[in-house]
């Protein structure tokens, strides 16, 4: 499927860019007229992926993070990649509460939050080469369950 629009950003692995990246992704997604809820989901998931790239991928050393956003008719695909350390065991890294950095008060909930807020999360990684996280979300597609408030 061909995207109807696409954008690509490259930025330094600085923590001040976490807010920049999530706001940029949400601003681009807003072309599809998503709900405020859906935009908040995107912001949260992007923030988690970019934070992982900074803390785990580059281990707080300088590096470049790439973010590609592709818009389809009613959905978005966001690819966030680093050329950092990579993940040895992806399955383990995605386990709720698993963290390789408990001393830094990391909660180990990053991937779980991404999976909870997006429709699909894919992780590709090679130790020593880097990691790419792809987030997918469809807008207003399904009948959303009522939350009761």
């Amino acid at each position: 499927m061909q995207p109807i629009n696409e954008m690509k950003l490259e930025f330094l692995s600085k923590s001040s860019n976490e807010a920049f990246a999530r706001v940029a992704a949400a601003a681009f997604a807003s072309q599809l007229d998503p709900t405020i809820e859906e935009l908040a989901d995107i912001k949260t998931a992007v923030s988690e992926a970019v934070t992982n790239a900074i803390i785990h991928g580059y281990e707080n050393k300088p590096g470049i993070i790439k973010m590609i956003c592709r818009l389809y008719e009613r959905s978005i695909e966001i690819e966030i990649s680093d050329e950092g350390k990579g993940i040895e065991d992806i399955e383990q890294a995605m386990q709720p509460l698993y963290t390789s950095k408990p001393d830094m008060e990391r909660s180990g909930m990053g991937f779980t939050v991404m999976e909870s807020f997006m429709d699909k999360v894919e992780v590709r990684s090679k130790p020593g080469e880097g990691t790419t996280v792809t987030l997918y979300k469809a807008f207003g597609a399904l009948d959303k369950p009522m939350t009761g408030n």
Partner: protein
Amino acid sequence: MEIRFANRGSTLIASLTGELDHHFSEYARNKLERELFKATTRNVIFDLTGLSFMDSSGIGVLVGRYANIQKLGGKAAIICRNEKIKRILEISGVLKLMPLYEELDHAIKALLIA
């Protein structure tokens, strides 16, 4: 992000405003920690109603502080009305450690009784 503090007896109310992500987590941790170790503090209420954004970095900050509050024999509670933040608190298990309230008065009452 900003944190303001108020006291109600031995209960410290920490009101967080703005966005709590990894970038601000160290600032939040240090600021909360300094206040927590004051002798007047026993219980702590984290008022998150002013937060417009929080991701899992915020969980690390809250759980880390909770551990210290507990060591000092205190209790903690959270006030939050933002559905997204509530979901993160819920899936990460934070609500098993600290009860969630929508109103400050309810949280204060609950900490007094408990």
